[in-house]
């Protein structure tokens, strides 16, 4: 057992050293030039949040039935933001670092995973803002909150897997960044982020039952349910069958297996093609 640990330590020593250095350099570069520094990480989702809050909550009165709707809305935006940041930064990452790939042989997955690590740190900083909001609005904590780490794990696995796939694909297909931007735009509205899923369920139950099978929808709704409000409609309320409830997790696992396989198969030629 100890020997196994020792072998793992030796094997991942170099990847971990590079990853750490890349994340540190990335953070320094991103924030050194701006006056507000690290605050930008927090201000971005807050800015989006205020616009959506004014339009959808104040003007359109969405989410009237859900307590603490502002926190509910912000939490969804922050989770979605982590997914889009990770995938769209990773998309161009191999090509952006082509110079490095051609000079030194290090495991190529480090490039993608270090982006995932950096965006996850920003995500955690955003969670601090959510905690602050919860304190301000005195949202009660429930026991179910213990499920949150598992949901974040599912989220991280999904985001990094998709990141692996799009980054490897972009090496081949250089118009993917435009396609991905549009896809993310569409996916934002096909995921119940700004509108409550319950509202869709009232109008068209079939649509709600299809939307919730998307792993991002399942994660966002479950996370809201355990942290913010038991009025968030989750997959468990829409389906009785345990098999169907497992579909989003099944999709996440299938996507990660396929993405990692594709990335590994392609990674030998990144240096030539990126």
């Amino acid at each position, binding site marked *: 057992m100890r020997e196994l640990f020792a072998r793992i330590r030796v094997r991942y020593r170099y990847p971990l050293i590079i990853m750490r250095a890349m994340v540190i350099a990335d953070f320094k*570069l991103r924030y050194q030039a701006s006056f507000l520094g690290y605050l930008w990480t927090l201000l971005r989702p807050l800015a989006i949040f205020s616009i959506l809050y004014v339009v959808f909550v104040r003007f359109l009165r969405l989410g009237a039935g859900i307590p603490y709707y502002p926190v509910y809305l912000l939490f969804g935006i922050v989770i979605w933001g982590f997914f889009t940041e990770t995938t769209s930064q990773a998309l161009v990452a191999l090509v952006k670092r082509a110079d490095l790939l*051609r000079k030194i042989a290090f495991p190529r997955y480090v490039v993608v995973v270090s982006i995932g690590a950096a965006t996850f740190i920003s995500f955690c900083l955003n969670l601090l803002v959510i905690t602050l909001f919860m304190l301000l609005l005195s949202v009660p904590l429930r026991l179910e909150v213990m499920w949150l780490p598992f949901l974040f794990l599912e989220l991280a696995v999904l985001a990094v897997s998709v990141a692996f796939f799009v980054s490897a694909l972009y090496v081949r297909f250089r118009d993917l960044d435009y396609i991905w931007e549009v896809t993310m735009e569409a996916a934002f509205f096909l995921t119940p982020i700004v509108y409550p899923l319950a509202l869709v369920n009232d109008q068209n139950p079939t649509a709600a039952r299809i939307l919730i099978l998307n792993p991002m929808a399942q994660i966002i709704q479950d996370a809201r349910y355990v942290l913010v409000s038991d009025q968030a409609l989750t997959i468990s309320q829409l389906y009785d069958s345990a098999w169907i409830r497992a579909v989003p997790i099944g999709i996440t696992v299938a996507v990660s297996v396929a993405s990692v396989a594709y990335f590994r198969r392609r990674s030998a030629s990144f240096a030539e093609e990126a």
Partner: protein
Amino acid sequence: MTEPIVEVRSLSKDFLLPHLRQTTLKGRALRLFRQARTIELQHALRDITFDIPRGEFLGVVGRNGSGKSTLLMILAGIYAPTRGTVAVRGKLVPFIELGVGFHPELTGRENVYLNGALLGFSRAEVDEMYDDIVAFAELEESMDQKLKNYSSGMKVRIAFSLATRAKAEVLLIDEVLAVGDATFQRKCFEHFRTLKKSDTTIVLVSHDMDAVREFCDRVLLIDDSRIVAEGSADVVATRYTELLGEA
């Protein structure tokens, strides 16, 4: 007879010519309606076979475009061989270029840590040798300036003083001597002499026949993607000079 530290067997490398590769989904979709084009291959290396015994200082020479840099990239594990095998038995550090990963917007200090990581040093290890590196590069005063404000000579000094710390059994060196002033080149050569005395195996790709004659135990001459001569530095360097004369 001990095992050679590097073993290359019938190694070939082909490149797809870039303008023939489909690089957009749109292009790929349009191609479905057209006749498939014949793909043109560029043979960068053909059927290369050689061994490097432990501790040898091997030179690789050849004209521009002969394939010698491609060979180095494959030895470094950066390119995958198209056919054939490469076995390296020991830790290999490539210096395809000095200062890999250097970023102009980071300070000298931050770049030392970044480049150090790429050479395989943890932060703690860089901490330990940091003062020595800076002293060797003679840049004590400018470490907190951004790298973009450094002269190219300063950059090379920092990069080189890091490179000399790398612990490797096999070192690949590609033309790094071409940069830097006379003093710096002398430092490089001194470092090579120390390496030669230690048990490090070195592969040097160079156009500088004086350096090749002085350091290399054995030299490979690559021309038109094949090994055309192999032997002592004097013989191969002369052959190379003749080859340049013919062209």
